[in-house]
């Protein structure tokens, strides 16, 4: 329990740091956020611009501004979008499920395919097959995903016309029955999900392979073999549990990558998720939304790390008991 208290304390400090950096990034803007309003609209007089500055509290000292902003953020109030005046939290809440669905689906694919591939490579370490597999995985690891997405779109969508290339549902979505809706969404998600899974697959299986090779060299594996256990039992009973553990940490750390990837995939395939929302807001310089997504993204990352640590501790007594080794 002591371990978790310590971690939680660290999280609070990190959260403060995150809000501070997000706040600083937005105040890098020369002149300040309201300049966009007045610059883009010549009808805005100097007087009106000043009024707006007052309205947003931009005439007060920076530290005071941060204080009041942080206070609002603490209660999940990120203000309203510059573009359509809707609350930022509403916009984000509408976008999150889509990104979450895509991320979870592709993570499932990654794990389902990546772990067996890694095991296969480690078991056959040094053989020709492992060499070929490693080369392919390294190539997959180096593949620019947006390029792969472009080629896949042009082949399956434009060339063969078999898969939809934009959006997450068809035009007549509202008139469909429940099952038709599910089918429709799944149909639209095939390309983006399989491509984002492809992007993460290589990394996970390379990591898995390296871990398992390391573990297979341990003394307790030799002991297990020496006492006559079958190779199957050695591999799945003794080696694998230890080799899979570090994967938890990697999964926790993969949240930023998934979020970054969502920007690319969602803008290529016009999917209305977090990445797309963020990207559009960046183009429109919609500061409240940018800040909101930035803070939320960082919180999700923190959460990912924390969950990974928690799962790790739950599985590994050495960490749970705070033992140093």
């Amino acid at each position, binding site marked *: 329990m002591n371990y978790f208290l310590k971690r939680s304390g660290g999280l609070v400090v990190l959260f403060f740091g995150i809000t501070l*950096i997000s706040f600083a990034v937005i105040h890098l803007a020369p002149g300040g956020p309201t300049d966009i309003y007045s610059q883009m609209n010549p009808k805005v007089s100097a007087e009106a611009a000043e009024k707006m500055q007052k309205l947003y509290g931009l005439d007060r000292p920076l530290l005071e501004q941060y204080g009041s902003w942080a206070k609002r953020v603490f209660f999940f109030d990120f203000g309203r979008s510059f573009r359509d005046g809707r609350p930022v939290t509403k916009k984000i809440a509408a976008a999150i499920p889509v990104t979450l669905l895509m991320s979870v689906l592709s993570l499932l694919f990654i794990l389902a395919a990546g772990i067996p591939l890694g095991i296969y490579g480690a078991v056959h370490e040094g053989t020709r097959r492992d060499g070929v597999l490693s080369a392919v995985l*390294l190539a997959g690891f180096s593949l*620019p995903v947006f390029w792969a997405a472009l080629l896949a779109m042009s082949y399956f969508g434009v060339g063969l016309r078999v898969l939809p290339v934009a959006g997450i549902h068809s035009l007549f979505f509202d008139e469909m029955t429940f099952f038709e809706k599910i089918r429709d969404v799944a149909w639209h998600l095939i390309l983006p999900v399989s491509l984002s899974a492809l992007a993460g697959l290589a990394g996970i299986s390379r990591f898995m392979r390296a871990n398992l090779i390391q573990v297979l060299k341990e003394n307790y594996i030799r002991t297990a073999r020496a006492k006559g256990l079958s190779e199957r039992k050695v591999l799945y009973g003794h080696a694998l549990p230890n080799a899979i553990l570090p994967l938890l940490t990697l999964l926790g750390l993969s*949240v930023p990558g998934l979020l*970054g990837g969502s920007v690319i995939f969602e803008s290529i395939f016009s999917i209305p998720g977090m990445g797309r929302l963020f*990207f559009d807001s960046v183009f429109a*310089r919609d500061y409240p939304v940018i800040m909101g997504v*930035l803070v939320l993204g*960082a919180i999700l*990352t923190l959460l990912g790390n924390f969950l990974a640590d928690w799962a790790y501790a739950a599985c590994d007594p050495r960490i749970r008991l705070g033992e140093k080794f």
Partner: protein
Amino acid sequence: MKHFAKAWFLILAAVLLGSPFFAERAGAMDFSRILEPPSLSHFLGTDSLGRDLFARLVCGAGVSVGVSFLAVFISIFLGTLLGAVAGYFGKGIDKLVMGLTDLALCFPVFFLILAVIAVLGPGFWKIAVIIGLTGWMGTARLVRAEVLSLREREFVLAARALGAGAPRIIFRHLVPNAARPIVVNAVLGISSAILTEAALSFLGIGVRPPAPSWGNILNDARATLGVAWWLALFPGAAIFLTVLSANVLGEDIGKP
């Protein structure tokens, strides 16, 4: 794989040296010859403005490789400095620097880069600096770990006994001994920096057209996806080969 990677980097070096000769050709538009497939006069075809794709790829190499080298230089410099200082001095300084590293690792890097570009606007130098400033954390952790294990060794003690100060010990004795992992990190950093720059330019917020970069040529290709396969294929292949080569070399150097 290794020889292939080295060969690709040699080709790339030759391309970089030759790129000034292609600058004029890369910008020359010819509206009577738009979207032509690869042919003898246009080795890799032409784009939607009738510009020669090969010349644009050659010039784009300078931009893509330039941004990533600059970014990696910044991130390796920062990471090595922070990691070495944290590892050598320990205690409060170590806690502070590592806290900062953890904090930086919490941000979805790509979101942060996008946000900063949203505020500052795109451009060659800004992109390089931002990628560099958001990529030092891995190096810092690595160098710190190396320095922690090195600083108790006899040669450091000897240097201290001879009266060497902290900066001299760090930069003359500790950092050179951690050179191999730093170099590996740099080479792998190049591959990820090229990918990041290409992704940014692909999204239309990286290097600004008409200056060609591999990413923004790919971005142009989106508009003509069903018509001109060569516009989508070749720039991506250039990115892929460069990233792959950097990864292969990095892995090779890292082998003990």
